[in-house]
């Protein structure tokens, strides 16, 4: 073999390997820059001021608790919608729908995943929130509830596609076995298929929640953006403000290097760590399951 070919092969292989490792580099860089710009906030504002209940940056009140509770209540609301509807749809598509219907439903759900969040936020302002206001007789329709409803819709495609994959991966023999001993299809789904796909379903739920927690434009547009503590059950009917919306709304107006700037990066760092925790947990569930499956099958 001639030498130039060897050299080219060597260089290309190196480049490909470097590209492979680039994902680690980017996660590292993101973490690094969030720390670099966010951690100084801890030196400028005392921890007790950060963990306070008042967010009013113009007068140097940087209490992030209202933003945390805002994100929490909107995300819980979204999860309560996305988990049942997402799993229900996944079970229907994977276990019940005939093949032709499946081929229609899957792209349709993917289509929902492709709708830009700003479009949903736009319809949230013009259509959803005015109707919520009238229907529930509220002073404003721009509430945590409006955010939860739309975020639920945004998280559904994530839940459906991962849960459906997990159900699909359950071997046919399991179902045939259950049906052969006289179980109905419904019993087979609940007692055999779903438990067998448990880890994938759990992953679907976690990533769906992660998707809702990180969503920005929709919540910024429809939740009313009031940084108040959302600690009572009826907070869902009031305006709230999430961590993501706070960053998006305020970063454009802060002075580079100010305390406000650093706190916004700190909030970004908190969001990053949340998503890291969710994703590492989700991937370790999958990994453990895979190991167990390998052990059983070997």
């Amino acid at each position, binding site marked *: 073999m001639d030498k130039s070919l060897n050299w080219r092969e060597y260089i290309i292989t190196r480049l490909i390997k470097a590209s492979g490792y680039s*994902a680690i580099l980017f996660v590292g860089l993101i973490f690094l820059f969030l720390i670099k710009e966010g951690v100084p906030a801890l030196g400028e504002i005392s921890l007790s001021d950060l963990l306070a209940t008042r967010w009013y940056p113009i007068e140097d009140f940087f209490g992030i608790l209202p933003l945390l509770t805002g994100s929490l209540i909107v995300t819980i609301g979204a999860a309560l919608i996305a988990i049942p509807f*997402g799993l229900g749809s996944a079970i229907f598509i994977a276990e019940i729908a005939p093949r032709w219907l499946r081929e229609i439903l899957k792209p*349709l759900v993917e289509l929902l995943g492709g709708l830009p969040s700003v479009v949903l*936020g736009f319809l949230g302002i013009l259509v959803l929130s005015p109707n919520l206001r009238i229907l529930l007789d509220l002073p404003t329709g721009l509430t945590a509830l409006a955010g939860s409803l739309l975020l639920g819709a945004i998280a559904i495609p994530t839940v459906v596609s991962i849960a459906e994959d997990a159900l699909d991966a359950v071997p046919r023999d399991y179902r045939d076995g259950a049906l052969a001993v006289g179980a*109905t299809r419904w019993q087979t789904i609940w007692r055999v298929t779903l438990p067998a796909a448990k880890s994938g379903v759990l992953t679907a739920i976690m990533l769906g929640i992660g998707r809702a927690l990180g969503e920005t*434009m929709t919540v910024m547009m429809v939740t009313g953006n009031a940084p108040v503590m959302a600690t009572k059950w009826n907070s869902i009917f009031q305006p709230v403000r999430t961590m993501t919306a706070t960053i998006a709304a305020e970063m454009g107006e802060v002075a580079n290097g100010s305390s406000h700037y650093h706190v*916004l990066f700190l909030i970004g760092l908190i969001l990053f760590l949340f998503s890291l925790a969710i*994703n590492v947990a*989700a991937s370790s569930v999958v990994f453990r399951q895979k190991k167990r499956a390998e052990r059983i099958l070997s």
Partner: protein
Amino acid sequence: MKRTLRISQQLSQRLGFSLLTLMVVATIIPILAVIVYIIYEGAPAISWEFLSGFPREGMRQGGILPAIVGTFYLTLGTAIFSVPLGIAAAIYLAEYAPENAATRLIRIAIINLAGIPSVVYGLFGLGLFVFFLKFGTSLLSASLTLSIMTLPVIISAAEEALRAVPQSFRTVSVSLGGTRWQTIRRIVLPQALPGIITGVILGLERAAGETAPILFTGAAFFLPQLPNSPLDATMALPYHLFVISTQVPEMPFHIQYGTALVLITFVLGMNLAATFIRSRARAKRQW
């Protein structure tokens, strides 16, 4: 006794199936309703002037050309960075990577990249590209930020497409004296191409519709001319829709719906193209 048990089982199955059917309907109908409603409300606003003119009278009249062009540039810029890098990374994972801890770490990193909130990408782009590398608020900064966000989608889809190519294809090529790279370049990549293209389009579709990552890295409220260089800021369809639906008082509805319609046509057009390529490739595939 046995008989009643049987009936109740049948009944619970029927009830259960009905419930699941209802859930699917409740999931699907709103999607279709949203699309149909935007087309219905937005179509009257679409005219040649709307698509080819600049906004006038504080955006309340005129067209949205700079936002359309801006989104096109951003999508193109994102593709320039993320497509070669994403495909190369996928080749590494599918064809070269050994099953060890380092590879597992790459996979965890990719999963994490996919899960990072879009606004956090915006912060990162602001810190690295706008300030640290001094690219300023520009097409370049925004495209680079969107590229990193798009990367996990492209890598996962391309890796899946590469892995789907049967092992025997590689064995034959290598046994005829092809090197590893020649095998990938001439045999595996062409076979996986439709799957890779589908993944690329789905990744770019996400980039085209995103607002949060470009908020502070490249998006402009209003510009009187089109961007001239990669270091200029740009208008973009999603950001423009955000601006005219929240920041401009007394905005005429038809312009808002018209902008939303152009945006979903752009994004869902890409989605349909990806679905089409995938299904056609599946039908034509011989292995």
